[in-house]
């Protein structure tokens, strides 16, 4: 009985040794070329996002400039009205 058990275990282990490499061979890995492409895609995405951030910074600056100019225009209009009124009195 013990002999039979040992044989069965041996056969099982041998089967495992043979089948494992075959099973792992079924998982397809990315090739080096694909990994290079992936790296390029990552760089493109980061570059596009950097461009977008720069544009957002520029837009914020333009918004501030517009806001400042509008405030200046309002002040100048007030100055003009005050001077006009004083001169007409």
């Amino acid at each position, binding site marked *: 009985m013990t002999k039979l058990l040992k044989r069965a*275990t041996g056969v099982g282990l041998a089967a495992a040794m043979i089948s494992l490499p075959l099973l792992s061979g079924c998982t397809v890995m990315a090739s080096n070329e694909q990994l290079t492409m*992936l790296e390029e895609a990552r760089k493109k995405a980061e570059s596009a996002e950097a461009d977008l951030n720069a544009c957002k910074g520029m*837009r914020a600056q333009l918004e501030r400039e517009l806001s400042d100019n509008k405030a200046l225009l309002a002040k100048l209009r007030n*100055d003009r009205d005050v*001077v006009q009124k004083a001169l007409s009195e």
Partner: protein
Amino acid sequence: MSFKKIAAALFCTLALMGGASVSAQEMTYEEYKIKLAGYESRTAEARRALQTCKEAGEKLRTEIAGVESEIAGVNTEIYELLGSDQSGIDGFLAELDRIEARLMGLLNMSEEALFEKRDEIDSIESRVGEMKTNKKALLPDAAKKLANIDQLLERIKARMPRKRIKQYTVVRGDNLWSISKKPSIYSDPYLWPRIYVENRNKIKNPDLIFPNWTLNVPFGVDLNQHLVLGGQSLSSIAGMVYKDPTKWYRLLKANQTQILDANLIFPAQVLDVPAN
């Protein structure tokens, strides 16, 4: 083959397989596809947002140009109203800033030091008066600065003693004329009567003073008084204090005890100046 040998062989096989898979490829094809799709999606999204951002930037630039054009138009209107240009306005405001800063400095001086600076303060007050008549003073910025300057001048004048008496000890060879001429006194010999009038209890004859006498030498005049200097007339003084030379008769009326002839006033006379 023994059980132990088989187990050792299986372990080695597994170890070799694991090591090989780590060194050769770090990513499965499925993972590669997912990551690639992620990067492509990020790129596409960023490019779309960049396009929107650029369009918004262009719109802002156009709007800024429009506002700048309006600013230029309103500025031109202001220049025409004031008869000046930007450099003229800037110069005017800069002068007000300088005056304001100087007055702040004067305000921190001691009363004695302020008294020594009274000519400068009078000169600043006179200049501020001139500047108020300029059209540029109508600009709100200038009006605000001028109002602040007026306040500072009021505070300085409230602190500054208008009249001070200094002591002078007569030395051999002195006379009232030479004392009055000294730079440390009036730098003007024609003001000698001021010293005479101030020391009437001691000086019986203005031609006769003695060494070691201590004389009181008055400087400045009280508020609402004016010290007559050489070359001044009632109308010129009225022009200074009332900004209207035709108001000379007010001065005459207020000083009838010391002015007998409206055309005859003397240096060193101290006239009362009634409020305008």
